Each structure stands twice: as structure tokens, then as C-alpha cells.
């Protein structure tokens, strides 16, 4: 890939020259720049291209570097960092560095041999040109085939777009409905609560409630620290597993050996691994088997359920439980309160104020006493429940909407699935490569793994994080989509977290070609995909976009 880039920089198409009387072009000068290599009119002098000095025109290409910028020696190696133009007739012209001129080697880039004294290098441009054109033709062919496949990816993205748009409009309606309902139920809840806020405040003074609150706080904090510890243990286990798998027994480091043996003993693996279940090692070997849940032990779900219980509702239920000895009133009054559920919204305020009046009057008269508040607690509790249900429903709908909207946005985002959404089709498509010792897998936009073919032990090499991060490319360009980064994989012993750089190029298949590890735990995957088979038009387009962006930046 690198070579192609550099070749692109150095290889220029031969342009047909205008047919005036040709001046003699000094050796190594690009015909386009020929006019720069003529004496100052009326003199035998020549001005260095950077204007730094004047030298006799005869000193151009005299194999001695006179000009500071080296411009006087386009055809020799006398000046460092110059470029030598090879016409390469029969092939494409090229510019090679002056360090290659007259060094006794025949550069393939300069197939006409003009960089060496005559007789040193044969002109092989015809042959090379033929090969070059054949290769270019083959590449074009691949590109055209790939582009056809790619167009199906684009069509898929369009279909996906349609699906998402439909879903979004349906969800928009649903959200509106859910929002209205939530508002209505919330209103009821607020009124109910307002009615009883004072009583509730009093009840909250109850030592039992406070105790309950405290316990809840403690439970929360225990759960947090439990979760943290668990995470830490998992991380430590991963480190130790990594150590066990990756340590080099050749180092004979006793501390490391002890750690590995200790861990094997602790995780009860030493025997298990050797005797049986090599296949099951995949998952279970990574962690020590979880101790079976004891009967009396609480599961996390149970604990969470308890923690998440609405304490206020509990308080109210408790009140009710203590206050009521029978069943009837509860049912009766609850009916009274629940009535409001059946009253049309418009009449609700009237009904409520009427009810308030009624209740307070009755209370004054001693007809309805304390149990009334118990009943109201129950109503509040119910109102709460129905509100939280409505709120949940709204959130669910909103979330679905949001995720579909995001999906739509990402579908055509330059840093998402590409301008034409062609990468969407490849999401979660997994490519695999067996290198003998390991099988490597990358699920595009998902994660990469390394699996041992010997014992099936598997390593997480990282999750998709971004396209090419090189500052030299930007979203929308071919080079940008030619690289994906997967990172934050499993920690390496004595090394970094594993990561993968996936380099892709146009091909008719989605495939991995090679895997290597140029730096410890930093993998390089090379593969092909039709998604990168751009047609020439698109290349141009991308260039224009880039140029425009550039211009706009400059305008700013």
C-alpha cells in the first residue's frame, strides 16, 4: 500500500508537449519544467530556482552542486534531495531521487536507464510498461467486479434507510401517544400526592422508615463496592490468565512461575486442564468456575429487586397493613379513589375538589377517620405505579426512536457506514484466518479475537473503535476507509492491551489475507472487501470534496 502511495506521488502521466521549437532540455528535467532551464536572456548566466544565486548556464548539470536549493543539478547526484526525471517512453514517466542517479544500480522506476551513464542500464520500459498495463488492467477488472458487489451493499443501505424511516415515523406517533398518556397519569399522581404530602412527611419521620432508608443506602453502597470488587477480580483474573497463557517459561523467572502455579491451584485448573475438557477451556478456563449459589444466598437480581422497591410505597403499604384489621373499607375507599381513573379528564379537577371536600367533611364529622389516610396512601401507591409504568413506556418508545434515528444518521455518516452506507451490509460480518497456530477472527464493527488451534483458548484482541486515525486522511477518502482500528482488547502480560489494525483494500471477497504482530500484542490484519472497490468517478468525487473542504477551511 505504501509503495502505491509513493509511486502515485512520483509517477506522473506523460503529457503531450506543445509543438513549438523544442529547446534542449537538460538531463533529468521534467519537460513541463523545461522553460525554467534556459539562460537569463542575453546572458550566459542562469538563476538558481530559489533565486539564491546566479551561475554560468554551463554549470547546470556539471556534476557540482552550486545552488543552495540544488536546482542546478537535475541530472546528476551532485545535489542532495533533488529529483531526476525519467521519460520512460513506453511506460509512465517517473521522478526518482537524486541519490539514485549514477549509483550503478538500474532502478525499476527509471526503466529507460537514463539515470545511469549510457551502457549501464538497458531500456526495459517496453517490457515493464506491458506488465504495468496488464497489472493495471487486472486491477481494474477486480475493481469493476468489486464495484458491482459494492452496489448491492449500497442498495441494501437504501432498503435499510427505507425501513428505518418507516420505523421512525411509526415510533414518532407512538412516542406522542405515550407522552400524552404519561402527562395525564403524572397529573393524577401529583394531585394525589399534593393531597397527602403533609401526612407523608409525618410518616417519613417514622423510625422504621428511616431505618429502612438507611438500610437501603447501605445496601446501595455495598452493591456498588461489590460490583467494583467483582470487576476488579475479573480484571485480575484476566491478568493472571494472560500471565499463565503468555509467560515465557524460558525466562526461568521464579516469581512468575510461582504466580502461575499459585493461580492454577487457586482456580482449580491445574488438573482440569490436563485431564479433560480441553474444548470447554474456551470460556471456563478464562475464569475460575463460579461457586454454586447456595440456597440461602441471595441472587443479585433479588437484591436489586429489594433495593429498587419504592420505599415510600412500602411505608404506605405498611401503614395500611397496621391500620386495617379487616378488608372491606380498603376495598370500598379504594374504589372511591380509583374512581378517578374512570372519570374523564375534563371532569377530574371538579371531581377531585368535590372528593376532597367530601373526605374532609366526613373526617370532621368523624365519619371517616385515620383509615382514610391509609386509604389515600394506597391510592398514591397505585398512582405511582401507573405513572412509572407510563413513564417507562414513554422512555422505551423514545429510546427506540432515538436508536433508529441514530442508526439512520450513522447509515450515511462519513465516519459511520460511509457516504453511501455501503458498510452497513458488512456490520457483524466475520472474517476468519487460520494461521496454523491460531485462528484469527474479526467481526467488522464488532470485535476481533485470536483462538488457539491447540487448546481453543481465546483472546479478545479488541473492539471496533474507529476508521483510519492517521492525520493524513479524513472521512470520505478511500484511505480513510482502508483501515479500521480495534482496541482495548485483553491486557498483555508485560505489554499493552491487545489491539488490531485492519488494513483493507478492494477485492471481490470479504476476506482476511494475512495476520502479523509487528509489535507485541499489536496485530496487523490485512484483508480485502468489495466495499472499497470505488470506481474512478467516486475517486474524483472524493478528491473534489477534500479540495473543497480544504478551500473552505482556508476561507475561514
Amino acid at each position, binding site marked *: 500500500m505504501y509503495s502505491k502511495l509513493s509511486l502515485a506521488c512520483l509517477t506522473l502521466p506523460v503529457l503531450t508537449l506543445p509543438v513549438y521549437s523544442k529547446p534542449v532540455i537538460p538531463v533529468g528535467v521534467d519537460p513541463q519544467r523545461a522553460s525554467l532551464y534556459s539562460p537569463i536572456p542575453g546572458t550566459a548566466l542562469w538563476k538558481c530556482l530559489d533565486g539564491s544565486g546566479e551561475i554560468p548556464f554551463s554549470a547546470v548539470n556539471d*556534476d*557540482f552542486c*552550486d545552488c543552495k536549493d540544488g536546482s542546478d543539478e537535475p541530472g546528476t547526484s551532485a545535489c*542532495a*534531495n533533488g529529483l531526476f526525471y525519467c521519460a520512460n517512453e513506453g511506460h509512465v514517466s517517473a521522478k526518482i531521487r537524486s*541519490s539514485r542517479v549514477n549509483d*550503478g544500480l538500474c532502478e525499476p522506476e527509471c526503466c529507460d536507464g537514463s539515470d545511469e551513464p549510457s551502457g549501464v542500464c538497458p531500456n526495459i520500459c517496453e517490457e515493464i510498461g506491458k506488465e504495468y498495463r496488464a497489472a493495471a488492467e487486472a486491477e481494474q477488472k477486480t475493481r469493476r467486479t468489486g464495484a458491482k458487489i459494492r452496489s448491492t451493499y449500497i442498495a441494501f443501505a437504501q432498503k435499510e434507510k427505507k425501513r428505518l424511516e418507516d420505523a421512525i415515523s411509526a415510533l414518532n406517533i407512538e412516542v406522542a401517544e405515550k407522552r400524552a398518556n404519561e402527562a395525564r397519569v403524572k397529573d393524577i399522581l401529583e394531585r394525589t400526592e399534593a393531597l397527602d404530602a403533609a401526612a407523608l412527611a409525618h410518616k417519613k419521620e417514622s423510625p422504621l422508615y428511616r431505618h429502612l432508608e438507611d438500610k437501603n443506602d447501605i445496601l446501595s453502597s455495598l452493591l456498588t463496592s461489590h460490583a467494583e470488587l467483582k470487576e476488579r477480580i475479573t480484571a485480575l483474573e484476566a491478568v493472571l490468565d494472560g500471565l499463565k497463557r503468555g509467560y515465557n517459561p524460558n525466562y526461568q523467572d521464579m516469581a512468575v512461575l510461582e504466580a502461575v502455579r499459585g493461580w492454577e491451584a487457586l482456580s482449580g485448573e491445574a488438573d482440569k486442564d490436563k485431564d479433560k475438557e480441553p474444548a470447554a477451556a474456551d470460556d471456563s478456563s478464562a475464569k475460575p468456575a463460579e461457586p454454586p449459589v447456595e440456597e440461602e444466598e441471595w441472587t443479585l437480581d433479588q437484591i436489586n429487586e429489594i433495593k429498587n422497591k419504592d420505599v415510600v410505597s412500602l411505608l404506605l403499604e405498611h401503614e395500611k397493613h397496621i391500620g386495617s384489621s379487616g378488608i372491606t373499607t380498603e376495598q370500598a375507599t379504594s374504589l372511591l379513589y380509583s374512581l378517578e381513573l374512570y372519570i374523564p379528564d375534563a371532569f377530574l379537577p371538579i371531581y377531585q375538589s368535590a372528593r376532597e371536600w367530601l373526605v374532609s367533611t366526613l373526617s370532621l364529622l368523624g365519619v371517616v377517620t385515620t383509615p382514610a389516610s391509609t386509604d389515600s396512601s394506597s391510592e398514591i401507591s397505585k398512582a405511582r405505579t401507573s405513572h412509572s409504568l407510563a413513564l417507562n413506556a414513554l422512555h422505551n418508545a423514545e429510546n427506540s426512536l432515538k436508536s433508529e434515528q441514530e442508526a439512520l444518521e450513522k447509515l450515511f455518516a462519513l465516519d459511520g457506514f460511509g457516504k453511501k452506507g455501503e458498510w452497513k451490509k458488512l456490520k457483524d460480518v466475520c472474517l476468519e484466518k487460520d494461521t496454523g497456530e491460531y485462528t484469527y477472527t474479526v467481526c467488522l464493527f464488532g470485535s476481533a479475537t485470536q483462538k488457539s488451534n491447540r487448546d481453543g483458548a481465546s483472546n479478545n484482541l479488541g473492539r471496533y473503535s474507529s476508521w483510519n486515525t492517521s492525520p493524513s486522511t479524513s472521512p470520505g477518502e478511500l484511505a480513510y476507509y482502508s483501515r479500521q482500528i480495534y482496541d482495548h482488547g485483553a491486557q498483555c502480560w508485560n505489554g499493552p492491551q491487545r489491539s488490531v489494525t485492519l488494513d483493507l483494500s478492494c477485492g471481490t471477497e470479504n476476506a482476511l489475507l494475512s495476520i502479523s504482530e509487528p509489535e507485541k500484542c499489536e496485530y496487523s490484519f490485512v484483508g480485502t472487501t468489495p466495499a472499497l472497490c470505488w470506481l474512478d468517478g467516486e475517486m474524483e468525487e472524493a478528491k473534489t470534496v477534500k479540495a473543497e473542504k480544504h478551500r473552505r477551511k482556508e476561507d475561514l
Partner: protein
Amino acid sequence: MRIATSVLLLLPLAHPLLALKAHDFKTCSQSAFCRRGRALAERAPTAGSSWHSPYTIVPSSVALSSSASSFTSSVKSELYPDINFELEVRIHEDGVVRVRMDEVKGLRKRYDEASSWALVREPSLKNVKDVKWVKGKNEVKGVYDDVEVRVQYQPLKVSLWKGGREEVVLNGKELLHMEHFRVKEEKKEPETAEGGAEQAEQAVLQAPARPTAWFEGEEEDGLWAESFSTWTDQKPKGPESLSLDIHFPGHANVYGIPQHASPLSLPTTTGPSPHYTDPYRLYNLDVFEYLADSPMSLYGSIPFLHAHSAESTVGIFNAIASETWIDVSHPTEDSTLTHWVSESGILDVFLLPGPTPEDVFKQYARLTGTSAMPAHWALGYHQCRWNYISSEDVRSVQKRFDEDDFPLDVLWLDIEYSEEHKYFIWDAKNFPDPVAMVNDVAALGRKMVVIVDPHLKRVSTYPVYEKAKELDVLVKGRDGKEEYEGWCWSGSSAWVDFFHPGSWDWWKSLFRLTDGKDKDSWRWVDSTENVHIWNDMNEPSVFNGPEITMPKDNVHYGGWEHRDIHNINGMLFQNLTSQAITTRGSTPKRPFVLSRSFYAGSQRLSAIWTGDNMGSWEHMAVGIPMVLSNGIAGMTFAGADVGGFFGNPDPEMLVRWYQVGIFAPFFRAHAHIDTKRREPYLLEEPHKSIVRDVIRLRYSLLSVWYTSFRRANADGVPILRPHWVMFPKDKKGFAIDDQYFIGDSGLLVKPVTKPGATETQVYIPEDQVYYDYFTYNAYRGSAAGKTITVSSPLEKIPLFIRGGSIVPTRARPRRSSPLMKKDPFTLTVALSQAELATGELYLDDGESFDHQKGDLVWRKFDAWTLKAAKRTRMTLKSSDMTKSGQTVVDGSLVAPGAYRADNAYAKSVQSVRVEKLVILGLPKKPTTVIVQGVAQKEGWTWEGGVAADGKKEGGASVLVIKNPNLKIVDDWLVEVEF
């Protein structure tokens, strides 16, 4: 104590990388014979005047040899009257004195072959007529030139006098002790029979004091078995250590005994407030993450020491191969006492009388040989990493070097190229096409260096191991029968015993490029002439051995224990591989074999490096004195890994490290497998371009390096010259080890080794003009020495041309050094204050041995100025400096009668031009420039400035003569009149 603990606790947290495992390696107190030696040295001063050496010469036994300048005599120890020792003193042709002492007619024989490996040949002795022997009552004196060797009988003492001054004294402090072989006394268990308890107690109380206790101490300390960590050394031969004090009454500075990460001028280890508390140790070890300031052992050992003062220089070569500890102290300000304690071997000490540093280098070179003439490409840039992981990786690294136009000569492969670390056997999965890969690299004139370590994987599928087993040339375990098994990279491994003559031809045959006599024998067919070798881990490194090396009671050829030959072991491996590479093809070619371990004489083979350094500023800085120290001990083809083996240097550090690296004879970048890739093309700007310019600077100076190598090859004077070597009388320069000169070129460099540096102080030791290499700014020193301050931003290396030098360079950047073969030269003439200059240039084909037959070009350039009444004329002359049959320290430069000015090599470069003459420091603009008698109207430019003569500083005047149409191989004259 508390402070110490907290420091210990904090250190690992603050510097997780600085993780030397100090407990893996012995201190003197953990080594029984060192303990005994140091205790002996401590006993002497406390004993006061009652202390005396128990060793005396039997006067009647002194026997002068009639044929040569030597004598032998019997030596007795009053401690053990029944034991016989013999002393021999020989005087070499060049005045070097060799003193040998051995136990004779003893129970066993001490190891006496160290010198046979170290010496290039048996030294010839002075003609007996030239030495006058005078026998006195208590001494015998040998007198020659202005030297006297005095051998005192009682107590035994050998001293070297020069010009009436006592220069070196052996046993002057009476610490000589050669432990004799003895039978282990079975300890009698105290009788436990009834009623015997009391008796036994009495017996213990009445145990007679050892009669030798006044000298050897009350306790027997570790004479037999000795444990360290989990290992036990059985020491079947018992004690056989050797203690020897070597005193320099008139020399305050000592240098040498590499390899240690310590200053060049060796700091003290004993006496009042010593710099180090442990002695310098010589015991080749693979020290993981070594410290940047320590007397600890490292990978190589050269028991050669210079003692220097403004008046004279002398040298000591102690030909011993066993573990050796050396204490250094200054009994007075102007003297130095060294105390050498070795575990085994005879006493075999060479006294080199000097009197100048240059004389000492030549005397040492006559003993152990000069440095080999390297292949020219080996002086280029070497790019290494553990590991380039596949042949595609190798090709891509090469491509990126070329794309960014960095010169590069050698690409390296570390251990992972091999299948399961079975060296030679390519890992076919990643290197399916090794020969094609090497050919692709070689297509650009480049070479590859591939690692071959000395541990052989013990599997029947490894033909190298199988053959070694069949030939029975593997190192044996303590029983002397079974092959020794240890752990190294390849897991369970065995080691070839290169002391076994049976291994020699076989090892060479492995590298043969074509079938030899033994066609069925396995050889490395997947190799080419462009593959050279890296011999690592040859201390030897053994992961599960004591101190990460072989057990001392392992047995080598001839029944010698590993302890006897340890420090030579690595050299033998490099020696055989070098021979193998030299002779593998149809015509002999100069080998390149990099070794980590080395000994006296290793310079005759190839290169070494300073081992697994760390990517820190401290390690970058200490690399300089380490390379200097190796150089003054003969091992001049040396360098430290650029960038540091461990760690990830930041771009600034990496740039500075390249600036250090290009000024070492061996220039290689290397990195550990856990580090990020850091090939120079990966740097961002401006660092990338700075490093490109730095590497190009190295390449432009390759002629200077090559000429310096030839000089070192001829006379043994090191390539890197510390101040005390260049200016032996300038006391201010004796301790300087962060700036140095390159050969005779007149280039003075002070690499920057501190972060954020923008200025650097440079010491100018003489009243002379020094020109900034890049700007031609003229600086002046003074006769008393002067420190100047120069600007040194990141892109700038403080590099100077000493006035009076002519520097030949090739300015055209190329991808590799062989591609520079036909490039023209630039000569920079830096006039001295006396308006003179001189320089030289050596060229040959860079790879064959034809230079020994006279196929070479060796030019001398001289510039001088003659003032006449009307005009002054400066003349620059090029002349041939090769004389046929010219003798050099190590034989003759070219076979007598063989050299012809129009030899084949000279013809092959006869078209190579001098493209540019740059003359610095002319007093005024020339009126005429005359090239070969023809006045040049054009073709030269003048820029006025400071003249060489005078006191002014600032930009020097520069005369540039363009394309003078001169050939480098020709005699010519250029005259400038003004």
C-alpha cells in the same frame, strides 16, 4: 535503615523499568575467593610492620637462560614449605616483561592456557646480548634500554623501573597468594561416646591456632563447596585462587579492564570513601537491565589496564580467564594500588613499559593483535530489532528506508527467524523464501546479519545438535561424562565446547556455501554470501544457571573446569564463526560477526557491542565511556545500541542517541520485542529529517572511519581517542570521557546526552584553532586548556575539526555504502595556527583480503604555507603513503615487494574525482589558484573571515575550489597565492 527501606520500597514504584535483578549476581562478599582476597588485603595494614609476604625466591635456583632473555627460579612459601612454585621472567623484544608463576609438582595443574588464546603469537624475546643481568644478594636485575626489571628474592617482589623511576611493582604490598592444591580434610566428628563429651569440649577449646592464620585468616572460608541462591558449586579441585597486588607508585589514573558501566578513569573501590564499594569484576555475564554506574561484571572481560600520569604511561595485561575481582585505590594522591583476585589459573602478567599511551597500545597489539580490518559496509548503519517478523516485514522495512532516503547497509534478524530457536533453521511460515529475501536486500548493495546463538536445542530433529552429539563436542556436566543440559531461548539446550578441536572443522562446515568433502553432513544451504552472523548469548547465558551462566564445575575439553576458561568461552565461539564466514565461499571475504562476549584478543575477529542497555539518558551517556574503555583495551570495533534495547525513547532522546551512535565505530539501532517500533522513518518531522541528516553525516565520513580502522589495524592505536591519549601531559583531560577524537582525522566530538540541551561546554586542550564542522566558526583553545560554550540545539552535534587536519568526505547521499564507491571526494583543509595541515585517506575493495597483497590506495595530504617577500603561497599536495614491505606492529602492512601504485584496486577507482577543495583559515583572498601548474581564472569562490593564524574567533575564511579536475588516486599539487 528506615530511609534505606523506604527508598527500596519506592524505587520499584517510581521506575518499574529500572529492574536490575541484583540478587541474581554475586557481590564480592558472596564469592568465597573474593572474600578471602579482600580479607587478606584488609589484614595487611592492621598487621603493620609484622606483615610480610610469605613468598621468597630460592636464590640458588635462579637460572638465567642462555638462549633468550629470561630466567627461572624456585619460589617457596613459608606458609606451606612443602609446596613448590616456579617463577619465570621473560623480556620481550619490544621491552615488555612477562612474569609467570605456577605451582609445580603439585597435586594438580593450574590452568595455564589463557595466554595461548589471547596472544596473537608467541612473543619473541629480546636478544640476550641486549639485556644485562646483574645478580645481587637479594635481587636479580635485568637492564635494557632505559628499563630495569628488578626481581627481589625476599620477600618476592618484581618491579619495573624506567628512567630511574619505579613504574610498576608486583607484590609490593605483599598480597601475593597462590593457593596450592590440597586434599580435602574430612572433618572429624567430635566423639560422642559416653564420658567423651567433656573431652571433646576440651579438644575444641584446645584446637591449635592455624599457623597460617596471620596471613590466611583464622577460618577456612568456602574452600570447598560453595552455594549461591539455589546453586552449589562443588569445587572438586578445592581452593586455587590467586591474589596479586599491582602498585603504580607514580600514576594517579588507571583506565581499562572493561567491560563496566563506569567512568573511563576508573574510580576507587577501596580506601577512604570509595566511589564503589565492590571491586571491579571480570566475569562475563548476561546482566538483565544493567545499572548505568556500577563495577558489576558485564558481557565481556579484558584484563588489561593502563596506568597514566603526565610523566609516563604503563600497561598491565593479566592473562587470566577465570572470574577476577579488582580493587582500585590511591594510597597517595599520585599513586594507584590495584589488587587482583582470581579464582583459578596461573600468574601470567605482562608489564608494558610505555612510556607513551601510543607505545602501550602498540606493545599490547604486539601481544594480542590489532583489530581486524572490517568489511567497509560494516561501518554503515545497521538496523536491528527483536524481531523483524517475516521476509515480507524485512522487505517492507527496507522499502520504507528507501522511500524516505535513509542510508542503510545492514538489516538484522534476531532469534525469531528460526524455528523453535533452532538456529540456522528458518521458520518456514514467516520466512518461506530466505534466500530470495536476502537477495532482495542485497540488490541494493546491502547485507543481512542473522543470529546464531551457542545454545543448541536438544531435539533429535535438529541436525546441528545431533551432529555435535555424535562428534562428542558438547560441554559436559560436573561428572565430565554426560552433556550439560541447561535452559535458554530454545528450552532444553546443550552447548558446543569450542575448546574441543573436534568442533572446529565441523562448525566451519555448517556455513559452507557449497558442498564440501562430507557431502552428507548438514550445512546451511538457505544462506548466501550476503548473510553475516551475530553471536549473542555467548558468555554463555544460561537461564537456569548460577548468575545466568554455566555452573563453574562444568567440564570442557582437556578436563578443564568451566571456571578456568569462562571469560574466554565467548571469544572462541566468535572466532570459529568468523573463520567459518571468511572461508565459506570460493574466495575468502572479511567476516562480520558481532559478539556480545569478548576477551583479550577478540579485536582480531570482528565487532562487539555493549549489550542490553536501556532507553535512558543515563545509559546513552555511559555508553560513551564504555565504548572508549573497550577501545583502549584493544576492542575498538564497538558500539552501544542506538535507542537503548529496553524502553521507548522519546523522539528527542532518539535523535540524540543517533548523534551518539554515528560517532561509535559500530553503529546499530536495536530494540527489544516489547518496545514500540522506532525505525527512523517512523519519526515525525522535524525529528525524521534530523535523523536522516545524522545518518547521512555518518556516511559522508565513512572514509574517515575506514582510514581510522586501517590505522588501528596497522598499529593498534584505538579509533576513538580519549583526551589522555591525545594529550598525555594535560592533566585537565585525564578524567574527560564525554568528548573524544576520531583516529588521526582531527575530528573532535562531544555528543549531547542531556535532555533539553541548547548549549554544550567543550574542552579545547591546546593553543590551537578548532573549526565548527558545520559552520566553520573558528574557536581557540589555550596552552593551559580552555572550555568553550557552543550552541547545541537538537539538530546540532558539537563536532570540530582541529586546526592542522585535512578531512576527506563524500557528500552525496546514497542508499547504501557500496553505492558510494564511485562518488567523488571533498577535501576540507583546516589550517592550523602555523598554517599547516595534514590528513590521510585509505581505500580498498572493502571486502576481500587483496589489500594484504597490495591492492589498496593510501593517500597522504599535506598543506603548508611559505611566506615570501612579495607573495605567500599555500601548497596542498597529494602523495602516496604506502611503502612496500612497510612494517607495522602486527607483521607487515603489505607483503614485501607486493605493492604497486597501479594495483588492480587503484585502477578500479582511477576515475574517482576530487570534486571540491575547502580551505579554511587563509589570511586573505587569493590572487591566484593554481591546479597542477595551471592557474584557474574561475572555479573558485572566496568568503572572507577569520584566519587560522592569530587570536580572532568567529566565522573562518573559506576558499572553495570547485571541480579541480583531480583524481583521488593521483599525485597532485594545488597552490594558492595571496
